[in-house]
């Protein structure tokens, strides 16, 4: 019966190491948030939202065009991705276990793992090259492709959580499958589906790589679908790798706006998810 003491020490060291791992992950999080907030707050002003970028050498200015551009791009992406994403999710939840549904699930998982830069290359090939024109549409397509798998899997998961009794009740009343799905099941899962869409939006709003050669960038204000358009992320990239002090400040301000947006979306989604599980439990 030797070694109990040694083993207890090893066990305690292991527990300590695991706790340390958590701290180790929280350090970069704290550092990133600290710099983004402290640097960003200094650079952020109302001008940032309402003014256009100024040329090098002039201080001030903002990212009004990029903010509008990001809204446009994510809006286009949602228009494209929500129908495909949600309905694919409906298919997976309604007809699980078929060979086609495994194929769809496999495709969704695959798409989720495709590097964002590769999605950009694809969107360039199908939406930029044929028209010889960078465009908001191409950027929206690239972001939309990235949103689809997230929405599909969330929708599937949440629809499967809807109690079977609800579905059977609707079908027993003589409703068609379509009726049952759209009048009973989807509404019951709607808060969750919206949560999924919000999370997907938050994720693609922060994407840069797929926009570099699809939406490209635009120094000017543009709402045309067929013209290149600016976005917060691409603008931030341009500023970050530039040698100008003033542009760096703008970059930090942009980062603060992005992080705030992502943070709010995550918190909202978390609250919504907590509410959904609470309702389900009661």
């Amino acid at each position: 019966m030797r070694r109990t003491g040694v083993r207890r020490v090893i066990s305690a060291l292991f527990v300590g190491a695991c706790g340390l791992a958590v701290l180790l992950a929280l350090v970069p999080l704290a550092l990133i948030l600290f710099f983004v907030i402290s640097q960003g707050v200094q650079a952020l002003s109302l001008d940032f939202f309402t003014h256009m970028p100024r040329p090098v050498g002039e201080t001030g200015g903002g990212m009004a065009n990029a903010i509008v551009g990001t809204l446009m791009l994510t809006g286009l992406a949602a228009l494209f991705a929500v129908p495909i994403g949600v309905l694919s999710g409906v298919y997976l939840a309604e007809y699980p276990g078929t060979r086609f549904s495994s194929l769809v699930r496999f495709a969704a998982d695959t798409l989720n793992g495709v590097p964002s830069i590769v999605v950009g290359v694809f969107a360039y090939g199908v939406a930029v090259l044929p028209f010889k024109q960078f465009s908001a549409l191409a950027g929206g397509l690239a972001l939309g492709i990235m949103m689809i798998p997230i929405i599909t899997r969330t929708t599937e998961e949440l629809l499967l959580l809807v109690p079977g009794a609800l579905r059977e009740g609707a079908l027993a009343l003589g409703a068609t499958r379509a009726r049952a799905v759209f009048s009973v099941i989807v509404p019951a899962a709607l808060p969750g589906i919206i949560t999924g869409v919000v999370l997907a939006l938050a994720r693609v709003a922060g994407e840069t790589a797929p926009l570099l050669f699809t939406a490209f960038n635009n120094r000017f204000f543009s709402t045309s679908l067929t013209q290149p358009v600016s976005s917060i992320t691409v603008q931030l990239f341009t500023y970050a790798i530039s040698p100008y002090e003033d542009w760096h400040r703008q970059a930090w301000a942009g980062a603060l706006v992005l992080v705030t947006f992502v943070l709010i979306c995550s918190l909202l989604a978390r609250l919504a998810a907590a509410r959904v599980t609470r309702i389900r439990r009661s």
Partner: protein
Amino acid sequence: MSPTVTLPPHPVPARPSRTGPAGAPKIEAEALSFFYGPKQALHDISVRIQPNVVTAFIGPSGCGKSTFLRTLNRMNDIVPGARVDGQVRVDGQDIYGPSVDVVALRRKVGMVFQKSNPFPKSIFENVAYGLRINGMATSRSELAGRVEESLKQAALWDEVKDRLHESALAMSGGQQQRLCIARALAIRPEILLMDEPASALDPIATQRIEELVYGLKRDYTIVIVTHNMQQAARVSDHTAFFWLGKLVEFDRTDKIFTAPAEKLTEDYVTGRFG
């Protein structure tokens, strides 16, 4: 290490009792209450469990018999929010005392679970696990010897001796459960707690487990939880009846089944409820 003195299975004919037949106890619980968070699962339980007999805990599901069993080797420690009041003494020592080494306690008080839970390793490695982590074998040959001895004790050796290095998960359910018994015996506990060990098994596998339990009591103090009254009657010397987290009656098994002191016990063992 295990006591060689065998006490007679029915020590002293006793008065109808709640704490069980008289004699020097191996395990003794005194005013034990148990809580999961705010919910009280056991109320003020006092029992004295004799060495080298088989003690059965019976009662309807949810009556606390398994919970009580798990307080005897502090298995409930790993449940978040669990709390214990009162005392449990093994060989006179309070196992909830501040200086108790839980690891050493669990070595002394082995446990077999309701569902067999072999590790996804070979048959040999399953039995060797406890020996290895506790550093109880100093050489390969000693390790192999103790694995063989334990498998023999669990009446499994003849069935598996040619495939010791195959996966334990390939065995039948009954074999897996006997493997888990062998694994528990390998570290030479003094007490063996069995939580409905045959509830997931077919009648033939169940019979083998029961024979095993009968044979093991010469060397071990055995406490077995069962929802099957025939099983309790077949294998045990003493029986405790639990009801809603309380101990109703604890006495010699023949007495519990033929002349219980409590009306509630009588109703249960005659199948009037439960």
